[in-house]
């Protein structure tokens, strides 16, 4: 059973995660210094996010290119941010595919640390809200 059933659910959680990250001055400064922009293309369900030092864009209207493009399933993204799947393992097994300068990817990974710290809380909160909404409507849709 997938962690997120719909694009809306995934966009809500991953979008919130990166909006919080974008408010972290250290994160945006390091992105700017390294000239980094990132496209995250989540699958199953589709959820596209673009992160730059100035903006976080979500949905189908994100730019066609970025310094780094990361493609993975929403379940893989969930496991990564929860800390139950290591990035090197995910890459080695093909669960995560990355295009862009590997040197830039190596710079990106350490500055994502706040996302690992915040994601469990964001995901748990979203799950709680979803379950409450479902129970008030008489069960899961």
């Amino acid at each position: 059973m997938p962690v997120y059933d719909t694009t809306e659910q995934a966009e809500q959680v991953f979008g919130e995660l990166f909006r919080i990250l974008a408010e972290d001055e250290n994160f945006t400064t390091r992105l700017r210094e390294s000239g980094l922009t990132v496209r995250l293309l989540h699958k199953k369900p589709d959820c596209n996010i673009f992160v730059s030092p100035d903006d976080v864009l979500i949905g189908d209207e994100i730019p066609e290119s970025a310094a780094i493009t990361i493609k993975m399933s929403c379940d893989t993204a969930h496991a990564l941010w929860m800390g139950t799947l290591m990035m090197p393992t995910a890459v080695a097994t093909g669960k995560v595919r990355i295009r862009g300068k590997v040197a830039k990817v190596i710079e990106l990974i350490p500055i994502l640390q706040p996302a690992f710290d915040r994601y469990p809380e964001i995901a748990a909160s979203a799950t709680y809200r979803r379950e409450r909404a479902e129970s008030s409507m008489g069960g899961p849709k």
Partner: protein
Amino acid sequence: MSVLERSPEANFDDPQGEVSRFREAVRKFAREEIAPRALELDQQAHDHFAWDLVQEGHQLGLTRAMLPPHHGGLGLGVVGVCLAMEELAAACPGVALIFGATMLGQAPVLLSGDSRLQSRFLPLFSGDEAVLACNAVCEEEAGTDLVIPQSTRHARNVSTIHREGAEYVLNGHKRVITNAAVATFASVFVTLEGTSPESGLTCVMVPLDTSGITRGPVADMARSSVAAVSTGIARHALETAVEFCGQRVQGGAPLRAHQMTARKLAEMTSKVDAARLLYLHSANKVDNELPAPEYEPAVAKLFADRIAIEVAGDAVSLMGSRGFIREFGLEKVLRDSYGARIYEGTPEALALAITDCLYREDSDDDDDL
């Protein structure tokens, strides 16, 4: 400038010119410092190690070319490393392998993404004194079985690691590991006790002054970067032959004016250029894709290894007895060309990897995510 001197910038992205400048500096170092000593190094005692050349290379940045700038490196990527390897190998492949093996030892630390490991091991390479690393895969019984996925289940007596309290205990015996005798740390590939090699190897960073480690003597032996080494070996043979055939007069004309010789030289230079294009293409893919591609590096190495032997053989043939006498240097080049074919994948191992890719479904399919 002859066509052999041309820079291949058109084949990769180098907007700041950093890679080209590094390549020029390495070429100068290789030609002025390494090449004049290549024969002497080849004939020196088995356990001799040219620390002075390593120190000069370190000052140029050869021990930290691949490391990102925030870890004191040059951040040149695999393309930059491969071009440097070609230059070094055109002077002496043994020296190229010292630096190449160090980068192989660094790669697992970099790719681990673990900032604690990186902070512990990577700053070692930006000090005043040269520090080397190594990558330990090969074992007495498990050689190629450890690098061909279809064969890993057959790997026997592979080194193991298990946890004891707060420590890990590693047991095993690695062999023919380039730099093992002189490296500060090794990236050692082992199986986690209780699992089979088929389920994947674990990489452990091992400081080589740890108690319980015994090192053998310096060994004589040290995929995109080895393809570059083979290309460098072929280029050395080609340049030697070009010089000789331009000067040597037979039948009233320089050798190069004879059709048979011209044909050989033309074929040799075509092969060197093709090998370089293949390794640059492969290195560029490795610099821009994760997981790292399997197909392109294997194709580049298979081709470069083969043409290095062919070009070295043709050079020996063109130079007659001078090609065979050790003092002229080509005998070493021919020997080196066979060595490069073995490490980091024999033609047979590469053929299995390439053919497996030919029959595999497109790995870019989103359903596999």
